[in-house]
């Protein structure tokens, strides 16, 4: 054991302040990781470097890349992938899976309510102000019954494990959550590189995502449609998630369309094929609300389809996710999630919420301003990790600047205690060794008509920069294959 360890993990430094997924508190290797640890230990670091390079080349050649736009150039980058997988044991996974599903269901009921009777607002459980000042609430959706009663067909729940060993949800993503294609590609890449390790573990597959997604999307088909035609709509090949859009269309076996491929006639949606128009019934849309229909929303959008919204309102087409879901993944609504879950489901929340201070409330604003150094300040409506300030990482000038900004726009910000994301051994190119890096987990939940599905796995994102807590790919994050073990 000592010898094995010296080969590949010899220089691994464990910071006892952090919760390491590989180790127990006393420094011993966790049971689920033991076999993996031994198997990886049989490789020399040079083997590992070679495998890693091969995996990278494979991603690159397959074009599993995203574009980074410079001044005059477009660079293609691969989403960094780490060959050391993360393992989630069955008991922990059960909590995550049930918790993710619970949240998605509660959010769906919440959306139905705020676009219909608005009971939760009338009873004062969620403040009216939160909804009426939200730019993502669509008045046009009031009274619309989405087919199958589903708003958030696809939800991405961002979960972390804190130093207390508990899972916390950081964010619910129910607009167009992305990343699921990486889950599947990571698994494929790991199988190609180190197929041997799979012989020792019984891991749930992740490749069944597309078939489940298609089945559940089809279950929310419009009334009167027998066999629905489903498509994926993308903003186009210059979108940073285009690979995922094409991947999902391909694996579901449906057309990948752009706005210009569709048109609306008499409130029905058609796509332009080589054999003329063909009716479209279910649209998995990866285009934001405001770009869906230039006649209804942003008139200068060329990504959308004129008339699409009226076809939707008539119930002639399903949009997944439904327009107007963005109001519920607002970071201010997040803070009411425990109440929302209890209100609709009469259940206790399974996953913890991080305590949140609302800067719009004078008392809490005072607390935030006084304790900035111990808090994370987040804008309410930005995605992708932008605009986040982590208190203990700021210089004095930055603290002053953040204070000033928050004081001027309190409604725009919330604050949370700094959560310490768990760490996981991660191979670092520059030092050619394994180091501790912070990780989170995005789970993918799909809701259909009376059916639901949680992908057994999910995207483990790694903050590759040392000490960094922000795991988004746009901020230099990578990812890991994530194994959910069968009992």
């Amino acid at each position, binding site marked *: 054991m000592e010898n094995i360890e010296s080969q590949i993990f010899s220089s691994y430094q464990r910071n006892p302040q952090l919760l390491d997924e590989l180790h127990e508190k006393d420094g011993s290797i966790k049971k689920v990781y033991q076999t993996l640890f031994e198997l990886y230990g049989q490789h020399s670091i040079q083997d590992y470097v070679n495998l890693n390079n091969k995996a990278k080349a494979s991603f690159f050649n397959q074009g599993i890349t995203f574009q980074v736009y410079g001044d005059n150039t477009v660079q293609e980058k691969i989403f960094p992938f780490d060959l050391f997988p993360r393992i989630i044991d069955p008991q922990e996974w059960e909590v995550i899976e049930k918790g993710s599903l619970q949240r998605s269901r509660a959010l769906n009921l919440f959306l139905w309510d705020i676009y219909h009777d*608005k009971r939760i607002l009338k009873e*004062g459980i969620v403040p009216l102000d939160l909804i*009426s*000042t939200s730019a993502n609430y669509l*008045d*046009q959706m*009031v009274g619309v019954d989405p087919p199958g009663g589903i708003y958030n067909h696809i939800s991405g729940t961002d979960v972390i494990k804190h130093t207390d060993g508990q899972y916390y949800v950081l964010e619910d993503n129910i607009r167009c959550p992305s990343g699921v294609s990486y889950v599947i590609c990571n698994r494929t890449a790991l199988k190609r590189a180190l197929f041997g390790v799979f012989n020792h573990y019984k891991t749930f597959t992740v490749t069944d995502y597309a078939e489940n997604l298609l089945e559940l999307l089809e279950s929310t088909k419009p009334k009167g449609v027998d066999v629905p035609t489903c498509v994926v709509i993308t903003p186009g090949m210059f979108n940073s998630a285009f690979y995922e859009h094409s991947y999902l269309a391909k694996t579901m076996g449906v057309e990948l369309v752009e706005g210009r491929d569709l048109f609306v006639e008499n409130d029905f949606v058609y796509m332009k094929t080589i054999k003329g128009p063909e009716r479209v019934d279910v649209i998995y849309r990866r285009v934001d609300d405001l770009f869906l229909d230039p*006649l209804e929303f942003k008139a200068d959008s060329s990504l959308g389809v004129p*008339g699409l919204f*009226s076809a939707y309102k008539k119930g002639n087409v399903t949009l997944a996710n439904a327009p107007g879901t963005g109001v519920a993944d607002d970071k201010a609504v997040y803070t009411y999630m425990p109440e929302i879950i209890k209100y609709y489901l009469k259940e206790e929340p399974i996953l913890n919420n991080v305590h949140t201070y609302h800067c719009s409330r004078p008392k809490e604003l005072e607390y935030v301003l006084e304790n900035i150094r111990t808090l994370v300040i987040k804008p309410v409506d930005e995605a992708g990790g932008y605009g986040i300030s982590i208190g203990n990482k700021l210089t004095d000038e930055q603290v002053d600047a953040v204070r000033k900004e928050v004081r001027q726009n309190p409604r725009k910000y919330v604050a949370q205690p700094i959560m310490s994301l768990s760490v996981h051994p991660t191979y670092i190119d520059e030092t050619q060794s394994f180091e501790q890096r912070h990780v989170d987990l995005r789970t993918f939940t799909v809701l259909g008509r009376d059916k639901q599905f949680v992908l057994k796995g999910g995207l483990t994102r790694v903050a590759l920069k040392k000490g960094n807590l922000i795991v988004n790919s746009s901020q230099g994050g990578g990812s890991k294959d994530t194994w959910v073990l069968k009992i």
Partner: protein
Amino acid sequence: MYNEYQITYTAQNTYEHWVDKAYWQFMVIPWEDNSQKNVQVAFENSMHFPMEFSHNGYGFRTLRCHSVDPFKEITFKAKFSFLKMEDNPFSFVPNASISWEYEQLAQLTHKVDFDQFLKRTNLTHLPSPAASLFTFDGEQSIFDNLLALNGWIFDQIYYTPGATDVHTTLKEVLDMRKGVCQDFTHLFCAIAKDHGVPARYVSGYLNQDGGFFGDTQMHAWAEAHIPGVGWKGFDPTNNILANANHVKVCHGKDYTDCAPLKGILFGQGENTTTHSVSVHSQQ
């Protein structure tokens, strides 16, 4: 008692360059309810492009059209005929208790139910609190206060065609003290909302036989919701209540929700649109 109405709406569009592809959506068809009925629509365009009926996101009837061939100019013409009820806008039963009305406004359920027409929009945003402009008299009914507000706006702002456009803010209007029916209406809605009274923008036609203000295009006025009474129409441009001369097309939070014509063009260059409307009624 019903009057027979005929309205002709014309929109003439000319473009600097040839346009390859375009979509248009018109929200110009009279709204159908008990006071406006038997609406008949005839619609045509000079290019003979296909047209169809639909509804916008708020459920109002629209006419849609898209181009088939490239074009440089196009004229749309719509003719409507319908019956309009002659009624007295003052003939309603007022609430017995004035304080009850204000209590209703303060209820959370009332605020939730009418949130759409209570929240501020860019076009109904006041530069300073409404109270600094116009105060409500708590001793008077909401209706009477709104009537006074109607008159106050009529006195404050001078009807000046061409003084503003669809993007003009209330701050600019209040500074200039000039505006057109949209601005009068936005100001009315903004102040009413700020006092907790739900108010909405109404787009429609005005029969100008009575010598009213308004131009040869579409007209705008406001509707405010009074607990126990319902929605009442106020035309601050003319300091009157909406009556048998007001033909409603649609309502919304502000002009943006009610734009009579939306066009999406795939092409370059400028374009100009001239609208004209003629309204006739026979008794």
